[in-house]
Every structure is written in C-alpha cells, then in structure tokens.
C-alpha cells in the first residue's frame, strides 16, 4: 500500500501541449476527476467514482498538465489527520499539489513539507466538482517548491465558471508577475500577533522583520484587537455550513448503506453513523447544535464575521502586504479533539473567514511565515513571493 498516494493514474496522455505541459499535478481525492475514486478521505464516499472533471482539473488538463493521482487526505479536508499533503512534492513525484484549505490545512501542510503554499482569494477559483465542506470559506490551494509553478497553475485555473454561480461576479484580476520595489513597499504586522507570541517565537519573528527593514521595506505595526475572534467565528460558521453540506451523505442515492435498517430513520442513523469519523462527527454535531439549539450565536458569529472583514479591509488598505506567523507553537502535535484541531489554526483561519489570498513561505528556521494582501491581490502577492525567493521581475 502506498503511504502517500490513495490512487495513481497510470494512463499517460499521448502528447501534452500548453503552458503546463511540463507539470505533474497530484490532487486530493475531493477534486473530481472522471472515473477516479473521488472519496474525499471519507467512508461516506467509499466506492464513489466521479462522473465528470472538476473545473480545476479540466483547466489543468487543457493547459497540458499531467494529473498523476490522488494523495491521502484527512476526512473532507478538515484538519490534517491522515493527510499526506506535501509528501508527493518532497518525494519529487509531483511538481504541484492541489490541496483544500478550510482553516489553514494547505498552508500548514506546506509548512510541514517545507514547500510554498498558496491559498487563492475566495471565489477566484471554481469550486465546481469539489466535494467540499464549508462553501463560503473553502479554497482549492496550490503547493509547490517553486512559486513560478504556483503562478502558472493559478493562471490556468482562475476565472469565472458558469457552472459555479457562488463565485462573485467580478473581473478576474491580472495575474501576471509585477516588479517589487522594497523601497516603495509597506509590510504590515498585526500588533496583537506580536504581543501574544511566546518569547522565543517573538525573537525569530523580530529577526525576520529586521531582514525586511534591511532590504528596504517599510514595516508598519497595525492594531487589530479583534484578531483573536477569527477562530471562534470560523468554528461556529464553519461547523454550521459543514453540517448542512454533509447532509447529502444519507446513503439514499450513493454511498454505502448499512443493511438491516427497519425504516428510513434507522437507515439514516446507522449509515451516517458509519460514514463519518469521530472528528468530523464532532464538527457536524456542533454545527447542528448551533442550527437547532443556539441559532442566535450563529447569527452573532455572522455579524462578527462582517465586522472582521471590514476591519481587515481597513488594514490591507494601510499596507501592501501583511506578514502573519503560521504556526501556533502551543498547538498539539497530534490533535485528537475538535478543540485541539482548531488550536492549530489560530493564525491561519482569518483568511478563510475574510476570503483574502495567503502565501506561505518556508523559512530556514523551520517556522515560516504567511503573507497576505487584500482580496484579489493574488498576482502581487505571488510577485512578493518570487522576489523573496530571489526570482521575480527585475
């Protein structure tokens, strides 16, 4: 049994041409490819084969890329348990991996594998064909050692899709590389991120900021006292959306149906009971709790979300890019519960709540940092990455 791959595509395309003709892509099995076992890491979809390509897969293939297979993933992409995202890159089996980011999973997988990870702006990339979990927050993200590859993939897959009407109606931004002049660039850092860091983390973060200052960037401290609210908002709204999204896995039309049920109610309870793992069940039950028992809390979380989005917009107007830590050192190595899983995401969940793009760059120190910009600033954000890696437009 392959520890990294869940499924390998042994069919080699005849000849490939296009901007991505030299690129090998490993996908997570929540991105539909016709005929492949699109099981999304869950018993709920055991034996399920996708009927048609997800838009993302379709675009990649049309641009000449080779889809080499599905990597092992966590259940529906929630958390990192059983996820092998990033390993295919380490093993050099693929040039690019497509990984779902619900709360920061793709970025933390990039950190774990020591590669770059990019979460595009929400609504820039079609979710048609994605067996997802949190419709208003999820984004198919791109991992690679090389930012040039990331930009190439984004250019091939971004843009309006008539099959996904949840994408905001807006002009697709220009994704071509641009020149970064440090002397004309302001880097923001969130005051509360700094003050809440443990001492050793703070030290390495300050060192990083000094590097930027030496390179000519202006570094600006920005206040965001409500930043810590992102996690609770994500947890409430995300679990509510997940509970609804997973409602379709009832074994009536597809999926494994538990035998011996005496009526539809028993069938639902036993089939859905067997379909989901414990962690995901906790998440879904929490979402159902907010829907049925504590709707006012959910409404408040939605209002708070709007406020946080506005506050973040304010910040991204004051700096070209914002640098944010990636790792919560205090988080558990192997989170078992819902609460433990969420502590991993205290620095990453913000981007799923606001829909802004994030670039994770690995660091020699082993930590690594996130860079974010205003929503739809994906092109410029990748340019910053290219600059910092020593490439980029001169």
């Amino acid at each position, binding site marked *: 049994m392959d520890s990294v791959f869940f499924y390998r595509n042994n069919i080699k395309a005849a000849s490939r041409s296009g901007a991505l003709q030299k690129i090998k892509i490993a996908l997570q099995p929540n991105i539909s490819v016709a005929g492949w076992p699109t099981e*999304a890491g869950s018993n709920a979809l055991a034996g399920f084969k996708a009927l048609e390509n997800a838009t993302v897969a379709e675009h990649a293939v049309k641009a000449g890329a080779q889809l080499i297979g599905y990597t092992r993933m966590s259940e529906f992409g929630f958390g990192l348990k059983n996820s092998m995202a990033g390993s295919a890159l380490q093993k050099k089996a693929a040039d690019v991996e497509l990984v779902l980011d619900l709360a920061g999973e793709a970025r933390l997988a990039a950190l774990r594998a020591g590669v770059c990870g990019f979460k595009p702006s929400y609504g820039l990339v079609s979710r048609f064909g994605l067996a997802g979990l949190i419709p208003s927050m999820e984004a198919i993200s791109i991992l690679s050692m090389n930012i040039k590859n990331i930009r190439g993939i984004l250019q091939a897959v971004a843009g309006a899709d008539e099959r996904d*009407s*949840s994408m905001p109606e807006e002009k697709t931004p220009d994704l071509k590389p641009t020149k970064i002049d440090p002397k004309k660039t302001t880097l923001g850092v969130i005051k509360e991120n700094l003050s809440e860091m443990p001492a050793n983390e703070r030290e390495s973060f300050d060192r990083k900021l000094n590097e930027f200052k030496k390179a000519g960037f202006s570094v600006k401290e920005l206040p965001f006292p409500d930043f810590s609210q992102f996690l609770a908002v994500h947890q409430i709204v995300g679990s509510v*959306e997940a509970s*609804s999204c997973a409602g379709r896995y009832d074994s009536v*039309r597809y999926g494994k149906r538990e035998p011996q049920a005496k009526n*539809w109610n028993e069938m639902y309870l036993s089939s859905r009971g067997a379909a989901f793992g414990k962690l995901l069940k906790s998440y879904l039950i929490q979402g159902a709790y907010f829907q049925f028992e504590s709707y006012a809390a959910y409404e408040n979380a939605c209002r708070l979300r709007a406020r946080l989005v506005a506050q973040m917009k304010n910040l991204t107007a004051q700096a070209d890019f914002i640098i944010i830590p990636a790792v919560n050192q205090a988080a558990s190595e192997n989170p078992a519960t819902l609460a433990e899983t969420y502590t991993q995401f205290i620095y990453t969940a913000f981007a799923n709540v606001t829909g802004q793009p994030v670039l994770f760059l690995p660091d020699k120190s082993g930590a690594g940092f996130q860079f974010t910009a205003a929503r739809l600033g994906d092109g410029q954000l990748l340019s910053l990455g290219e600059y910092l890696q020593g490439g980029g437009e001169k």
Partner: protein
Amino acid sequence: MEFEAVIGLEIHIELNCATKLFCDCPNNPGDEPNVNTCPVCLWFPGASPRLSRAALEKAALLCLGLNAEIQPVSAFDQKVYYYPDLPKGYQLSQAHLPLSKGGWLDITDEDGSAKRLRIHHIHMEEDVAKLVHEMEGRKPVSLVDFNRAGAPLVEIVTEPDFRTPHHAMEFLKALRAQVRNVGSSECSMENGTMRADANISIRTKGTSQMNTKVEVKNMNSVRHVGDAIAYEISRQSAAAQAGEKIVLHTRLWDPEKKVTTPMRAKFEGPCVPDPCVPVIKLSKKEIEELRARLPEMPAVRAERFIKQYGLAAEEASYLSADAEIAVYFENLIKEGVAPRAAMHWLTTQLMPAAKDRNQELSQAKVTPARLAALLKMLARDEINANAAREVLAHLFASDESPEAIVSAKGFKQVSDRGEIDSLIDKVLADQPGAVADFKNGQGKALGFLIGQAMQASGGKANPKVIREILTKKLEALCKA
C-alpha cells in the same frame, strides 16, 4: 359566547417552467421515474446549484399579478430536516428574505360586499422528490422518484384576514384565475399544481387577540377547503365552550369521514442562509420591465369587452375572468362569429360539453375554428339550433369538419319555401282543431302548429321560415 374564526392560508403553487429551479433538468413530473435527474438535483458531491432566470421571472410575474411588492434583494435559505425525499438534508427556500411582500386579491363576500384579502409575502422554494410506498412480497418498501425534486414552487402566505369558509374558497378561485391569467401555473388542485393548507384559530367575537392556531392539511379541492374549515371552526368552538385548551398542532382533513384528525407533528427545521446560491438583486428597471410583460388583467379585459363587443358588464366580467375562456371567445370572433352568438354558444354549450368530457378548453377537440365554422352555418340559416347542438356533440367525437358532419347526418336545414309551403298546407289540413283555436284568439295554437310542422319535416325545416309562412297563412285564413 359567540366565536369568530381567524383563518390564514398557505398555498403552494408549481410554476409551469420548462426546467427545474436550480438545474436544466426538464420539469415533467409525469415522466418515467428518475429520468429527469442530474448530479445537481440528485446532490452529488461537487454539485453546484444555478438559479434559473426563467423560474425567477415566472415567480416575479406571479407576484406582480397579485399586487405584491417585489423586493430588490431576496435570498435563499436552507430549511434543514432529514427525509428520503430531500436529497441534501435541506430544502432551498426563502425564509428570511422572500421574493415579494404584501399583495391582495378582492372577492365578493356572501352579502354581496367587496372584501380584500391580503397577502403577507410570497417566496420561492424547490419541491421535494415523490415517495411511493409498495409491498415487495411481504416486505414494505419505499421508492423515491426524483423527477419532482428541485421543481420550482412559490409559496403564498396570506394575512389572517379570512373569517369564513366562503372567504377561503373564493380566494382560491380568484387566485387560480389570476395566476392562470398571468401564465405562471395551471393552478389545479386536482393535479397537485396548487396545494392549500389552512391555519385556523377562534376568538370571542369582538376581540382582537390572536389565539393558538391549528394547521389543517390534506385538502385536495376548493370544496374540501371549505368543508374542512367549517368543520374545524365548529370543532374548536365546541372545545372552547367545553373549556378545553386549543393546542398548536397539525390536523389532516379526512374527506370520507368529513373530519379533521390530529397528525404527528412535523419537525420544523431551522433556516440558515445558503452560501452557494447568490443573493438575488432586482433593479427598479428590471421590475418595471417585468410589470410591462404582465398579460392583460381581467378587470382591464372586461372593460375592453364591453367597449369592443357591446357586452353587458356581467357577461364581460364572466368571459374575462379566465384567460382560457377569454382567448377562446376572442378567437371565435376572429373567425367571424358575432360576439353575442360567440358568448352564448361558448358559455351555454361548449364549456359544459367540454367539462362533461373532462377536457380543458384549450385542449378541446372543438377548436375555435371548428366551432366558428359551425356557428357560421347556423348564422346563414343552413342549419337550425337543434341541429347545431347535435353537430357540436359530433365535433367532440370526430375530426371531421362541421360541413362534412352536416352533410353526412343530413342536418341541412330545409329552407326551400316551396317545400315548406306544401308541408304547412298539409299540417293545416290535418289540424283543423288547432286552426279553429287560433281563429278564436288562442295564440298558443301557433306554437303547436309550428311544432307539428317541424315534426312533419323530421326536424329539418327552418323554424323561422315555418313561422313566417304559417303566420301568413293563418292570418289569411282568419280574414277569409
């Protein structure tokens, strides 16, 4: 203690769109089970709903036809509950931001006064799949047909303005006529394209408080609605008189036993805003463009019928109320039939005949062209009224032209004056008693003699000519 009833209705109407609400599957529930399905309406993983613009416009036209105010912003919510006829564990509906607010329909109350019944709001929602329960040998099984899953519906929620079964029945009839006129639905309770539930409570006459209501379902015709409401009012009144407390619950109407019986409470799920279907925004300009597309409303059409065709107010009102009748009427006139004749034959002959044969006017074999051909023969005196009525029956049974039927069945009227003259001479000779009666001033004898002449001609003679010639001859006899 006198009670008054406080009643509100919730009416579901199936829009007659070609496709479903969120995908392009054909909206034909009667087809073979599960042929009109796709990954969207079956809610496969990765599926994405796409709101049908055509359905939105049909719904909006329906709202405008009911005098409602289209909301510039409306949105879909997820009504969460679990049942095998609901493929994704939630129904897409509009709980928080409905498509329209307000609206009304006017009816005539039992005392002849006008009564306005107000609408609270109208929202869009998708229909659920159809469940069929069968036995597989000794094992009960349930089969699910997803043809209907995702079909476009609107739900009309009224204000609790209704006080009597009459109000409810008249409202439903007016609603049916208006929505059919707009063209958004066939609104047939028999076919299930219109379904009505009632919320009924009672209070002491003269007070204004709202008491606990009871929901009544399973009323499958306008008649049932009236009967069920009447029963429920008396049931609640009796309970209140006996000092029993009315509890919020749902009851089913039993049309055989003519009672309502309590049913197990339906679980009311929460409504969460849906993150996949974009918010619906309709500009003032778009709403006005839709309003301009509304077909001619009955009141306006009635005015026009009075002016254009010289009909009386009541006649115009009747003919203009239903779009199907109005269109048929005007088509007859286009084919050259006089307005009064068109009206008479349409309402007294054709419509009852079509109803007896369970045919809709617009589907009836007797098209305006065929009926017009018949009525023009009548106008030219080629046949008489009796014969015309018989030919009409044949028009339903066969595809032949009226002319062919008249020839084949020998209905052609004898108008030949010479023939009729000799026929009448014979009748006068055979009926001296009646002739004498006429001479003595008994006018009824004329009618008798006309009848005899008609009989003698085998019903074929032109009665007008008979009367003319007979009258002349009798008058001549009187002078003689």
